[in-house]
């Protein structure tokens, strides 16, 4: 009998032992930037004026999720996976390696074949070919960055996206306003519109081919849409009072905007095909800054109907509104991340304006920036970063911060005051 009991205990012990043996649980990590080496792309004498590898390096580095290996430390510059001695790269502490080759395929077209190699596991993760003209070397580089970023981070890369923003340049005591579009890294700036009167609130169409904005060029605010390729413009509103804050619906068929033609600022819906306006809000308080939920069925907007500016949600079909933010005495300029859950906004707890992220599901508010006078947040289409306008000295500049506040960087400063950035959707 006693033997049996002991045997039983022993068995139990053994089984418990083998159970805990089954699985070691790792519940915490040590998130560090992934070390990656971008071997100089073999450009075989093609003179493009761009260093593709450097562009990839700065893309990845800027995301805050990667740390690149200095080119001067590299022992070899392999152009393809076959030429790689993994040991060399492992010695440099590199976890991944990008190798690539650019070659001409005729008709002024070029092909960049690249591979992402996993140095730790000693295997090729992906190989791709991208094509472009001699003027598209930056695009090719951003495409490589996108692919690498997505493969390693699990999130779609947004390096091939663009930014729209307004610059105010003071010339001879007079301001000149410019609406410009540039690559997400600030390069290749293109002028969209220049005016002596203010330009405000640029907003991208869902396909990234058009911009809507407010221009005072007619002497009072009016909303325009403009095709970025053909430069074709169309004035959409010409009401007395406020015409502002255009926001393109996700499917591109409608635009939410703010008009004060009926007395005080209210949210309206403009059908872009029929040009019909539908009034959505009816309140004596100010309702403004509409932004679309990803499903296109409801809008978020700012209203001071509760005494202080706060973010509300409006169901377009039922016109029912619901207050979302309660923390702080000022919450405005909502910009929604593509997950439909994380909301970036200008937030003031007591006396300073910051950019904060707000989790619509948990109601948690996190301040992302510590500087003063941060405004106009716009979330990247992959939801990883957001761009906002801030002050450097007395000049307005653009800065970016990751939505977990772990990474921040400033965009190269330009002449004049830069304000009101708008991050484009994915462009292809």
């Amino acid at each position, binding site marked *: 009998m006693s033997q049996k009991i002991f045997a039983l*205990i022993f068995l139990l012990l053994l089984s418990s032992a083998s159970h805990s043996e*089954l*699985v070691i*649980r790792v519940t915490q990590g040590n998130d*560090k930037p992934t070390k990656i080496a971008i071997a100089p792309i073999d450009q075989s004498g093609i003179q493009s004026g761009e260093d593709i590898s450097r562009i990839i390096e700065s893309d990845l580095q800027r995301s805050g999720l990667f740390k690149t290996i200095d080119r001067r430390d590299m022992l070899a510059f392999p152009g393809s996976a076959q030429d790689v001695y993994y040991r060399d790269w492992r010695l440099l502490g590199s976890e991944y390696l990008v190798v690539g080759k650019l070659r001409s395929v005729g008709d002024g077209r070029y092909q960049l074949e690249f591979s992402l190699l996993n140095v730790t596991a000693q295997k090729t993760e992906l190989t791709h070919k991208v094509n472009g003209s001699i003027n598209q070397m930056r695009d090719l580089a951003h495409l490589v960055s996108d692919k690498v970023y997505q493969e*390693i*981070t699990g999130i779609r890369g947004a390096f091939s996206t663009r930014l729209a923003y307004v610059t105010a340049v003071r010339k001879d005591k007079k301001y000149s306003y410019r609406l410009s579009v540039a690559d997400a890294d600030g390069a290749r700036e293109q002028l969209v519109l220049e005016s002596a009167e203010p330009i405000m609130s640029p907003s991208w169409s869902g396909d990234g081919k058009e911009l809507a904005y407010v221009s005072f060029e007619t002497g009072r605010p009016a909303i325009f849409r403009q095709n970025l390729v053909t430069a074709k413009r169309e004035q959409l509103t010409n009401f007395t009072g406020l015409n502002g804050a255009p926001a393109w619906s996700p499917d591109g068929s409608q635009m939410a905007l703010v008009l004060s033609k009926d007395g005080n600022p209210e949210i309206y819906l403009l059908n872009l095909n029929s040009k019909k306006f539908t009034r959505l809000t009816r309140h004596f308080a100010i309702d403004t800054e509409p932004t679309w939920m990803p499903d296109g069925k409801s809008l978020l907007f700012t209203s001071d109907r509760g005494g202080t500016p706060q973010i509300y949600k409006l169901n377009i079909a039922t016109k029912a509104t619901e207050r979302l933010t309660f923390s702080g005495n000022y919450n405005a300029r909502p910009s929604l991340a593509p997950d439909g859950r994380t909301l970036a906004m200008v937030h003031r707890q007591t006396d300073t304006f910051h950019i904060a992220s707000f989790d619509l599901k948990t109601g948690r508010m996190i301040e992302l920036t510590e500087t003063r006078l941060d405004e106009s947040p716009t979330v990247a289409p992959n939801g990883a970063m957001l761009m906002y306008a801030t002050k450097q000295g007395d000049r307005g500049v653009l800065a970016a911060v990751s939505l977990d506040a772990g990474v921040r960087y400033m965009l190269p400063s330009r002449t004049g005051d830069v304000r009101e950035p708008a991050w484009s959707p994915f462009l292809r």
Partner: protein
Amino acid sequence: MSNSLSYSAAILFSLVLHLALVAALFVDWQPESERVMIQPQFIEAKLVELAPKKKVPPPKAKPKKPRVDLAKKQREEKKRLAKIASQKKAAEKRRLEEERLKKAEEQRKEQLRLEELRRQEQEAERLRKESEFDQALAAEQALINAREDEQAANSYRQLIQQRLSENWSRPPSARLGMETLIRIRLVPTGRVVGVTVLKSSGDSAFDRSVEQAALKAEQFVELQTMDPALFERKFRQVDVAFSPEDLRL
């Protein structure tokens, strides 16, 4: 977190011990000492009735005596009778004495027998106790060994867990609730010779971050100090579940 984890084996152990105790109570486990039946060694003994050896002398036929000297005769007779009586008395006394002696002897023997019996019983008891003690000791030792094994294994596991945790850099696609289970194959030098995903999280970037964490660990040099038997039993293959609990989302 990792602390509470390290206690889990100990807590589990004590839990199991308690459960076993309760189980023992339920099955009405009684110390075996009461059940072991030692057959007493019986000794065949007969109570012997000691018959008196000398019967009372048969009554003598009274010789007819000439009544010559009646008084004398009477005196003689008296004497004779007294003599007989005293003889009788002595015989009786002797008999009683003999009987007493016999009884005493008997008693002594019985006592000896009982003593012997008791001694044997005690010896048997001693032996029985000894063997039971040995058994308990052996079981106890086995328990201790298992526990020490388990303790050693746990400290190595903790080391592995720590190293993996340090090496684990999660991608931004990582979310609370994701879990990837991998099997790490090791050789006695502590070197990682293989990593396979047993259960994917469904997110390839997350899975890869887990594989990378194991591959980056490269070698757990500390495993070289491990008892080889323990290594063979528990560390040739180590299964590790990666599941973040320190993320915001």
